[in-house]
């Protein structure tokens, strides 16, 4: 890992930390969101894990009671954004171009262009990826990682950082666990081994009680935040 070299000229100190720059901007976003009174959730997970569907379900259940907005991060196209838009909520598409993650910069730009004062919840759907988003704080209140059983029961241990740094883990599509030969409990155990305090939800769109628990978790987190408990 170490390349050694001989200094031949003179040394200029720079000391520029690129991730710190992102974190500084994320703090600004956090401040902006706090002023607007919005509770924000960053939803991360692989392509096809069910992020968009879970957000849709939460929007359907909560948009009658609360003012809900969503940022939909896609590399290109706007399929996810149009799914949220159809539900009648404020939707902000975020095409990342070549990027594999959303960063604080993108969110900062979007927050400048979109005043979210008066909104209660902002869903931020990250780009489908379990690795890159972990390096980029957006300024959100809550980080959620979504994995589906179809990704295999070793998916959790393969991506330790995201489970270490998330506030909630969702194991999705449990209705097909048997068909894909996966025991969701293995995934739960692995997630707990990485982060013993992380709350874990087992969900399936086909099991309404699990969707209700997902929605309730988001609503409770938002209400707690509004009550100043976290």
């Amino acid at each position: 890992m170490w390349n050694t070299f001989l200094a031949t000229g003179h040394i200029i100190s720079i000391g520029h930390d690129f991730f710190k720059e992102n974190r500084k901007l994320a703090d600004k976003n956090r401040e902006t969101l706090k002023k607007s009174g919005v509770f924000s959730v960053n939803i991360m997970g692989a392509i096809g894990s069910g992020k968009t569907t879970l957000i849709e379900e939460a929007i359907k259940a909560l948009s009658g009671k609360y003012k809900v907005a969503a940022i939909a991060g896609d590399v290109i196209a706007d399929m996810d954004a149009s799914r949220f838009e159809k539900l009648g909520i404020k939707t902000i598409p975020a095409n990342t171009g070549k990027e594999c993650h959303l960063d604080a910069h993108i969110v900062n730009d979007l927050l400048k262009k979109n005043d979210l004062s008066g909104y209660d919840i902002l869903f931020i759907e990250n780009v489908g990826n379990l690795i890159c988003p972990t390096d980029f704080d957006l300024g959100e209140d809550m980080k959620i990682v979504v994995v589906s059983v179809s990704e295999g029961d070793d998916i959790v241990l393969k991506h330790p950082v995201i489970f270490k740094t998330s506030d909630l883990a969702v194991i999705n599509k449990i209705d097909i666990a048997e068909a894909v030969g996966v025991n969701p409990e293995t995934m739960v155990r692995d997630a707990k081994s990485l982060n013993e305090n992380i709350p874990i939800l087992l969900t399936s769109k086909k099991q309404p009680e699990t969707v209700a628990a997902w929605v309730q978790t988001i609503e409770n987190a938002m209400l707690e935040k509004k009550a100043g408990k976290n």
Partner: protein
Amino acid sequence: MHEYSLAVDLMESVLTAAAENDAVTVNSVSIKVGRIAHVNPIQLEFCLRSIGEGTVAENAVYSFEYVEPEIKCLCGYSGKPNVLGDDLDMLEYLVSLVCPECGKNVEVIGGTELTVESIDID
């Protein structure tokens, strides 16, 4: 995974510092990589070399240094985790990140950086 865009930002920082100091050539660039950041120095170097073509940093030598994580535990411990070898992969490394005093899982508070420390110029 995102080395290319990071390399673009890094190179911009290198070239700005080089221009401000009237550099004719950048001999070397010293970079610190937090062990917990998802950055692969080999890929990063490849991207930097490619982006640096045709600039004063064209022939720069890159040196990378890993920064070990700093951890904080509920038991009150704050500092470095137990020393681990260089050859451990990310997974083993993270799973083994526990408090050296009480053995519980810890919060990582450092080792996530990507910093251009300095450049050596003529």
